[in-house]
C-alpha cells in the first residue's frame, strides 16, 4: 500500500483499527468494548499480577510439552511414512481423518480418561499439532531429490548416515513448515483445552473476568495472548524462510 510515494509498512493498518476501537470504546456504544487506551492501561496492571503469571506459566508449560510430544512423535512417524510404503498406506488415511476431524469432540474423552487437569490439556495440544507435522514430514521425505538418494548409495552411505546426514536435512524445509503450522494449531489447542477443562491457565482467568464483567481485563489478556501467538508464528515463519534457499538447489 502506497500513499503518495511512501510505502506504508505491512501491518500499519492495525494502528487505524486501534483508533477505530478507541473511538467505538469512547462513544459508549457497547459495554463490551472499553476504549483501547483503557485496555492497554489495564494490560500493564494485569501483567504483573500473580493470577496472570500463573495462568501464563501453566499455559506455557502445557503448550511446550504438547508441542514437544507432537514434534518428537510426529517427525519420525512422518519420515517413516515417507520411506516405507506399507506404513504409509496403513497410516495415511487416519492421519488425514484426524487432520480435519473436529478434535474438540475428543476433549471430553480425554477428560474422563486422563482427568480434569494438565495431562488432558497437554494431550489436547499434542492432538491439535501432530497431524500436520506428520503430513509435512512425510511430504518432505517424499520429495527428496532422487539424485541425493543415489549419491548416498553410490558413496556406500550406511542407513544411519543416509538418514542423519541427508534425509532429515533434505526434508528440513517441509518439516519446519509443518512445525510452524502445528505450533499455530497447538496454541489454539491449548486454549480450547483450557476453556473446556477450565480450571487452569487462561481458561480459568477468562471465566473469572467474564463472570465479574471485567471487560478491560478480558481484552487485555486477549491482546497479550494474540500478540504472543502472532509472535510465535512469525518467528517460525522467519526460521522457515532462512532455509528457503534449499528449494533452489535441492
Amino acid at each position, binding site marked *: 500500500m502506497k500513499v503518495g510515494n511512501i510505502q506504508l509498512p505491512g501491518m500499519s493498518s492495525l494502528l487505524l483499527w486501534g483508533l477505530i476501537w478507541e473511538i467505538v470504546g469512547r462513544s459508549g456504544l457497547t459495554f463490551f468494548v472499553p476504549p483501547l487506551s483503557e485496555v492497554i492501561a489495564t494490560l500493564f496492571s494485569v501483567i504483573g499480577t500473580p493470577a496472570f503469571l500463573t495462568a501464563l506459566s501453566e499455559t506455557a508449560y502445557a503448550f511446550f510439552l504438547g508441542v514437544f510430544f507432537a514434534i518428537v512423535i510426529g517427525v519420525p512417524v512422518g519420515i517413516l511414512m515417507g520411506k516405507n510404503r506399507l506404513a504409509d498406506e496403513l497410516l495415511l488415511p487416519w492421519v488425514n481423518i484426524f487432520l480435519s476431524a473436529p478434535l474438540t469432540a475428543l476433549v471430553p474423552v480425554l477428560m474422563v480418561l486422563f482427568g480434569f487437569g494438565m495431562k488432558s490439556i497437554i494431550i489436547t495440544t499434542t492432538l491439535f499439532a501432530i497431524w500436520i507435522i506428520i503430513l509435512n514430514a512425510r511430504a518432505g521425505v517424499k520429495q527428496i531429490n532422487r539424485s541425493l538418494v543415489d*549419491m548416498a*548409495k*553410490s558413496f556406500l552411505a550406511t542407513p544411519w548416515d543416509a538418514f542423519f546426514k541427508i534425509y532429515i536435512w533434505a526434508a*528440513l524445509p517441509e518439516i519446519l513448515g509443518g512445525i510452524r503450522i502445528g505450533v499455530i494449531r497447538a496454541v489454539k489447542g491449548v486454549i480450547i483445552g483450557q476453556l473446556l477443562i477450565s480450571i487452569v491457565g487462561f481458561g480459568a482467568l477468562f471465566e473469572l473476568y467474564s463472570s465479574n464483567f471485567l471487560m478491560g481485563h478480558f481484552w487485555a489478556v486477549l491482546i497479550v495472548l494474540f500478540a504472543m501467538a502472532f509472535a510465535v508464528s512469525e518467528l517460525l515463519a522467519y526460521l522457515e524462510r532462512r532455509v528457503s534457499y534449499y528449494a533452489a538447489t*535441492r
Partner: protein
Amino acid sequence: MSQTKSAFGQAASLDTEHAVITRNICKNYGAVEALKDLSLEFPRGQLTSLLGPSGCGKTTLLKIIAGLLEPTSGEVEVNGRLINGPGPNRAFVFQDFALLPWASVMRNVAFGLELRGMPKSEREAIAENYISAVGLSGFENSYPHELSGGMRQRVGLARALSVDAKVLLMDEPFSAVDEQTRRKFQEDLLGLVQNENKTFIFVTHSIEEAVYVSDQIAILLPRPSRVSEIIRPRALHGKDVSNIRRDPEYLDIVDQIWASLRSYVE
C-alpha cells in the same frame, strides 16, 4: 579414417584392457524392456560415451554400472570383478549435481570421504586439492545456492574425483549448464582424461559433445534398446584441441552419427 565396428566385432580379450565390461544386460520395468541383451566393453583409461535419443536407456545402463539399479539379468564386471551394488571403485557425477544445499563447498567435496569415515583434517586436505584442481579455490566456504550452475557441477566433479575411484560415471553432466560453460567443461574434460589415469563413462544426448570428448562412442537405439554401433574418433585426439571442431573428420563423424540417428527422432 574413422573406424566403425559392430558391437561384437572384437573378441573380448582379457581384462587388463577393459576397466568395465557389461554382459547381456537386460532391464525390464514391468512389461517394458528398457534394455535388451546389452553387452559393451569400456577400455581402461579412456572416455566412452553412451549416445542416443531420449528413451534409449543410456542413463539406465549407467546406473546399472554404478550399482544403483539392479539389472533384470546379465552382469557387470569392473576391474575383473562382478559388481554387486555400488562400490568404492566407481564414482558418479549427477546431471542435477546432487549437492547438499545445507553444506559448504568444502563439505560437499569431502562428503564421499566423510561417508567412508576418513578423519576431518585428512579429508579436507584431499578435498582442498580437488577444489583447486577444478578451479574453485576461494569458494570453499560458499554454499551451493551461491554458485552458478557451472560451478555447482565443478563441485560435483571434485567430489567424484576426491574419492579416487578408478571409474568415473558421468550422467549428462553438462546438460544443465549454459553453452559457453559447457564448452569450457568439455575442454577441461579432455585434459582430465589425459592426466588422470581413470576410465570415464559419459552419457550424453549431444552428438557434437560425444564426438568432441570421446575415445569411443557407443550409439544406443531405442525400442528395443540396443547398441547399434561403436565409433572410435580416437584419431582426433592426436590433433590440436582448439582445432577439433573445424576438423573435417570431426564434421564427418557428426554427420554420420546424425544420419544413423535421425530416423529415431520423433
